[in-house]
């Protein structure tokens, strides 16, 4: 993984001291809340319902054991002993004291972490495929490019006061696991006609109030020209993006209102002035950063593990975990293992300090010291020997992290909702808890197969409900929580667990081009009724599907909303 150089250390240290001074000035009364708020937001500090919230950046979801242990330590020492992994591969602490935050940031800086640009109208944490560097189907490891984009975008003076926040995701695999089509910019690493690396670029995707799937703006940008092209897009957005209306300020609205052709023409004109100049990324710089992401020293192993297969057959629960929570690796004898943060009745994405320590120990012992955070709010050990999977699993059992449900109905994405968030209109977590209890039976989950449930507590869609196969949006209706259901959403790409790394193949191919916004099924449901409604939808699917190989999403695409509306409303939706 990337290691800070002297510049990086100085950069983060300077920013930390600047923010420490700003906090001290706020506490001393030299800054008003109005003056301080934008400063704290640019350092990841929100004021939520119960307390401040600190959003810590986990660049492209990659962590070392040392970093995860530090996160555990910070959660234990300065918070309530847990953290919440988010849909943007970050970690949130929900109870830090403002006066402690500079010290927390100082602790994080010791392990090359920070909270810069995890909020505010700037370029946020660059996200990527959580199996990057490990996946059998990738063209190349996308993380060097995610790192290059991170370096370019950090405290970029021209882009620190954009019309609105700006999110970039990059993937390099045949199947998009980074939901690139629902980001402001989505980058698909690919090989060009001459075999060289470059990027297909999408622009104007996003969820929130006005969900949109990103449009292709260029089919190939050579790798050395990527930053020039990104700068061109950001310039066009910064110049023409709407600042008169917060709800129309994202680049997706600009693309929608002006049309992709006009935006493309503006970007290309800007690109012509920038390409080949100071933003050209020389081969030496690309190679230097790529070297940080060199593969670990994999052993020469047989593709099959007799020990694993024997253990798998002897223990059906372990076998279920293997079938769902492992993913094919590019190196024979290895897999990537998904650590579900979705226990039945639990809070999606939450992990205790003890659990973080346990995962760090497993990563150090069995996983080349690497951990990833997925946008599905799970953790990943990207490089695990098949021979070691039983030991990893036993460690996860001891830590309460061995739920074998990746990509199943209980692998629910949920935002913190009204239990924590100042923006929310309704609760997300209790609905997720009740749904996971309703669908807890392992055999039933297996019978249902790949199914994503995604819940947001408000229109901002942090729970990605628009791209859930079943999406649930909480709204406030005259003081009561109501839940609107959408069907047929898809982030584009593989469903976690669809196909294991141990010889099983799973669900339908869903490429990035298949990203789709879910369709509202009908009128909303009360908190009391929404779980029953979801069960009705699932039962309807099971009745109508053309065999087990037809996933929920495939069946919905064949059937549309009508049979589900009939089942839910008796034709009175």
């Amino acid at each position, binding site marked *: 993984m990337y290691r800070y150089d002297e510049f990086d250390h100085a950069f983060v240290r300077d920013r930390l001291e600047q923010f420490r001074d700003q906090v001290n000035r*706020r*506490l*001393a*009364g030299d800054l008003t*809340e109005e003056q301080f708020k934008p400063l704290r937001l640019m350092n990841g500090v929100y*004021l*939520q*319902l*119960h*307390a*401040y919230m600190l959003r810590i950046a986990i660049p492209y979801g990659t962590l070392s054991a040392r970093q995860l242990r530090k996160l555990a330590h910070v*959660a*234990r*020492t*300065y*918070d*309530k*002993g*847990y953290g919440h992994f988010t849909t943007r591969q970050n970690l949130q602490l*929900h*109870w*830090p*004291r*403002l*006066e402690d935050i500079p010290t927390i940031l100082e602790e994080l800086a010791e392990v090359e972490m920070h909270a810069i640009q995890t909020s505010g109208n700037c370029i946020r944490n660059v996200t990527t495929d959580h199996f990057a560097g490990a996946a059998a189907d990738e063209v190349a490891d996308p993380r060097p490019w995610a790192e290059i984009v991170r370096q370019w975008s950090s405290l970029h003076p021209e882009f620190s006061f954009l019309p609105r926040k700006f999110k970039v995701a990059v993937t390099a695999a045949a199947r998009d696991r980074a939901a690139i089509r629902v980001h402001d910019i989505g980058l698909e690493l690919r090989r060009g006609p001459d075999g060289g690396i470059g990027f297909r670029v999408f622009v104007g995707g996003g969820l929130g109030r006005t969900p949109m799937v990103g449009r292709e703006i260029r089919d190939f940008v050579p790798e050395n020209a990527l930053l020039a092209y990104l700068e061109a897009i950001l310039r066009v957005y910064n110049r023409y993006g709407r600042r008169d209306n917060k709800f129309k300020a994202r680049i997706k609205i600009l693309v929608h209102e002006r049309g992709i052709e006009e935006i493309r023409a503006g970007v290309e004109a800007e690109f012509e002035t920038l390409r080949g100049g100071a933003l050209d990324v020389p081969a030496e710089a690309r190679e230097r950063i790529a070297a940080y992401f060199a593969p670990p020293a994999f052993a020469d192993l047989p593709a099959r593990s007799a020990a694993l297969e024997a253990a798998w057959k002897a223990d059906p629960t372990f076998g279920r975990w293997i079938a769902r929570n492992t993913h094919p690796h590019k190196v024979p004898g290895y897999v990537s293992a998904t650590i579900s943060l979705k226990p039945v*009745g*639990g*809070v999606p994405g*939450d*992990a*205790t*300090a003890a*659990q973080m320590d346990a995962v760090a120990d497993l990563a150090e012992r069995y996983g080349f010291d690497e951990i990833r955070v997925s946008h599905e709010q799970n953790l990943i050990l990207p490089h695990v020997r098949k021979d070691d999977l039983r030991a990893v699993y036993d460690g996860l059992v001891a830590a309460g992290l061995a739920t074998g449900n990746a990509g199943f109905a209980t692998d629910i994405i949920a935002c913190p909702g*009204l*239990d*924590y968030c100042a923006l929310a209109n309704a*609760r997300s*977590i*209790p609905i997720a*808890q009740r749904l996971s209890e309703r669908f807890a039976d392992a055999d039933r989950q297996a019978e249902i197969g790949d199914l994503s449930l995604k819940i947001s507590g408000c229109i901002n869609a942090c729970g990605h409900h628009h791209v859930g196969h079943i999406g649930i949006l909480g709204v406030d209706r*005259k*003081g*009561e*929580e109501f839940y609107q259901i959408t069907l047929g959403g898809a982030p584009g790409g593989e469903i976690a667990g669809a196909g294991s790394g141990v010889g099983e193949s799973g669900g339908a191919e869903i490429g990035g081009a298949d990203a789709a916004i879910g369709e509202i099924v009908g009128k909303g449901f009360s908190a009391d009724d929404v779980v029953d409604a979801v069960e009705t939808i699932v039962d309807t699917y099971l009745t109508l599907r053309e065999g087990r190989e037809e996933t929920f999403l495939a069946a919905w695409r064949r059937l549309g909303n009508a049979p589900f509306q009939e089942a839910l409303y008796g034709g009175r939706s």
Partner: protein
Amino acid sequence: MAYASNFRVLTANRLADGRVVYLGDRDWTVDLGAARLVQTNADAEVAERAGREAVAARLVVEPYLIDVEAEDRGVQPVRLRERIRAGGPTTGNAVAGNAATGAARETA
């Protein structure tokens, strides 16, 4: 549900740690039961002035009045959002932090 309420209370978040606080008879308190109940517009103006003074004194941020019902079972906010602010997350024992023994300091 109609927002029926018979009192109001001034709430804010404490500047130093962000915790939910309420204007009491003499000071700010984390205990909703000890909050000053506001009934008249004149009382509301007094409470809001106290809120502005507390902001200026760097004690709290973003004070505002909420509707509460004060009955035999105690003071209860009318809106769900405020009930959650008063009582904490409703996610039960599944909240990892509920059972935590971390050093998060709760100072009244």
